[in-house]
C-alpha cells in the first residue's frame, strides 16, 4: 500500500511535468515559426517595395520631362553610392542597385509622398534620362538676390510638386534661419562663400545640406553634414548641361553626384561614337553641308567624355556640336545631325 501510494503521489507531478515540457516545446516551436514568418514577411514587404520602386524608376526613366507623385508606405528609403560607385537604394535589409537608372536624390527619403521627376540629359543631343527622386518632407530653398534668366528658367523647369521655395531679395538674407522639422533642408546658392557661413550657425539636429552653383564656370560645391554633425565640404564637381545641374540641386551626396556623372560620361562617350559613325556613313546631304566636321567633333567629344577629366573641353565640343546642329536645322539639312 505504501508503494502504491508513493507511485500515485509521483504520477501526478510527473504528468504535470510532462505536460509542461511538451506544452513548452509546442509553444517554443510555434513562437519560433511565427518569428520566422514575421521576419520573412517583413523581408518580403521590403523586397516588394524595392522592386516596385525599381519598376517605377525604370518606367519613369523611359519618358522625359514627366513628374509624378507616388503614394508610398512610410518606410525609410536609403539611397547612396560607395566611393567605388556601387549605387544602391535600400528599404530595410533589402537593397537593389540603381542599374542603368541615374537617380538624383537626398540620402534618405520617406513616404508617403514621393516625387519622381525625369528630365532628359541633352549634351546637346539626348544622351539619357535623369531621374530625380525626392519627397514632400525635404525642403529646397533656392536663394538668390535677383532672379536672372538662367535661374528663372531652372525654376520653371522644376515641377511644383517638389518642395522648392525661392528666397529672393530681402528674404534671401533671412533664408539661412529656416528649418524643416522632421525632414531635410537644402540650401542652394548661386554665388560662392555662402554655405561656409553655416559652420557658425546653430543647426541643432537639423538634417542640412548646402550647394553653391557657379553658372559661369559650371561648377558645383557640395556641403553636407556628417553623422557627428560637422559640416563637410566644399566638394567640387562640374556639370555639363541643365539636366545634371537640376540633378545636383536635389542630390545631397557629392559621391552620388560623381558616380552618376561617371555613368553619364561613359554613356555620352558611347553615344558620341554612335553619332560619329552615323555622321561618317551619311552619303548624301540635301543642303550641301559636309558631315565630316561633325563626325570629327563627335569623335573628339567621345574621346573627352571617355577621359572625363576636362569639363571645359567637353563644354567646348558640346557648344560646337550645338551650333552645328542649329545650322543644320536652319538649312533644313537631311539627314539631321542628331
Amino acid at each position: 500500500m505504501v508503494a502504491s501510494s508513493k507511485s500515485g503521489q509521483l504520477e501526478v507531478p510527473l504528468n504535470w511535468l510532462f505536460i509542461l515540457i511538451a506544452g513548452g516545446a509546442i509553444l517554443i516551436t510555434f513562437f519560433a515559426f511565427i518569428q520566422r514568418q514575421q521576419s520573412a514577411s517583413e523581408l518580403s514587404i521590403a523586397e516588394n517595395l524595392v522592386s516596385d520602386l525599381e519598376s517605377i524608376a525604370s518606367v519613369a526613366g523611359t519618358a522625359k520631362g514627366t513628374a509624378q507623385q507616388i503614394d508610398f508606405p512610410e518606410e525609410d528609403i536609403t539611397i547612396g553610392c560607395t566611393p567605388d560607385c556601387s549605387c544602391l537604394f535600400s528599404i530595410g535589409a533589402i537593397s537593389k542597385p540603381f542599374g542603368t537608372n541615374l537617380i538624383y536624390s537626398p540620402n534618405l527619403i520617406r513616404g508617403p509622398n514621393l516625387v519622381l521627376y525625369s528630365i532628359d540629359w541633352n549634351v546637346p543631343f539626348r544622351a539619357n534620362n535623369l531621374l530625380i527622386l525626392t519627397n514632400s518632407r525635404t525642403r529646397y530653398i533656392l536663394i538668390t538676390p535677383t532672379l536672372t534668366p538662367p535661374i528663372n528658367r531652372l525654376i520653371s523647369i522644376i515641377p511644383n510638386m517638389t518642395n522648392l521655395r525661392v528666397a529672393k531679395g530681402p528674404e534671401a538674407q533671412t533664408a539661412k534661419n529656416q528649418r524643416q522639422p522632421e525632414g531635410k533642408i537644402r540650401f542652394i546658392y548661386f554665388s560662392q562663400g555662402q554655405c561656409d557661413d553655416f559652420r557658425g550657425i546653430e543647426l541643432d539636429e537639423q538634417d542640412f545640406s548646402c550647394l553653391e552653383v557657379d553658372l559661369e564656370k559650371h561648377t558645383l560645391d557640395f556641403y553636407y553634414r556628417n553623422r557627428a554633425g560637422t559640416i563637410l565640404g566644399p566638394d567640387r564637381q562640374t556639370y555639363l548641361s541643365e539636366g545634371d545641374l537640376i540633378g545636383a540641386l536635389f542630390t545631397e551626396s557629392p559621391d552620388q553626384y560623381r558616380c552618376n556623372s561617371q555613368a553619364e560620361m561613359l554613356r555620352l562617350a558611347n553615344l558620341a561614337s554612335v553619332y560619329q559613325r552615323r555622321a561618317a556613313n551619311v552619303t548624301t546631304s540635301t543642303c550641301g553641308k559636309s558631315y565630316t566636321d561633325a563626325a570629327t567633333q563627335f569623335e573628339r567629344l567621345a574621346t573627352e567624355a571617355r577621359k572625363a577629366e576636362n569639363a571645359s573641353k567637353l563644354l567646348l565640343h558640346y557648344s560646337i556640336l550645338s551650333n552645328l546642329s542649329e545650322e543644320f536645322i536652319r538649312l533644313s539639312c537631311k539627314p539631321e545631325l542628331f
Partner: protein
Amino acid sequence: MAKSHKLGLRPYFLRRIRGTATAGRHLPRSGQDYNRKAQIQMFETVAVLVIFFFLIAFGLSFYFLVSKTQASKEYERTLQLRSITFTQKIATLPELDCVRVTVQVERCFDSLKTDAFRHILQNPGIKDDYFALFGYSNVTIQEIFPSVHTYQLYDRALPNASASIPTTIPILLRNPHKNTYSFGVLRVTLYA
C-alpha cells in the same frame, strides 16, 4: 508480448477478460496496476502528441507547398514585368531613336543609328559597357514591310538559363536619307 508481460500488462488484461478484474476501484490495487495505468495514459498522451505533430507537419507542408507555388507565380510575373520594362527601355534608347528637329518620335528607330550602334556593339569593350543595360538578352530588330531584313543588335545568352521571356513590340524604322519609314518589330528575349 514478452515485453508487455514483463511490464505487467498481460496479467491485468487477462484478469479483466476472466472477470477477476472487474472495476479497478473495487479491487485492491497493487503497484503493478498503477504502473500499467500510468503506462496506458502515457501511451495515450504520446499517441495524441504524435497525431498532433503529424497534423502540424501535414499543415506546414501544405502551407509551404502553397507558398512555393505562389512564389513561383510571383517570380514569373516579376520576370514578365522586367521583360516588358526592359523592352520599353530599349525602344526609347537614344542610341536608336528617331529625332526630328529635336523632337523624339515614339517607337521609331533611325536606321543609320541602328547600323552604327550594331557596329559599335561588336567592340567587346563597348559591349561590356552596355551589359548593365542589356544584361543576358537577345535584341533583334526585324524589318517587315516593305522589305524584310533582320538585324541582331545584341546577343548574350545566360548559360544554364532557367527561363527565357520573349517580348515583341511593333516599331517604325526611319531611313533619314530618304525620309521614309518601314514597319518592323523589336524582338527582345530576356534570359533568367
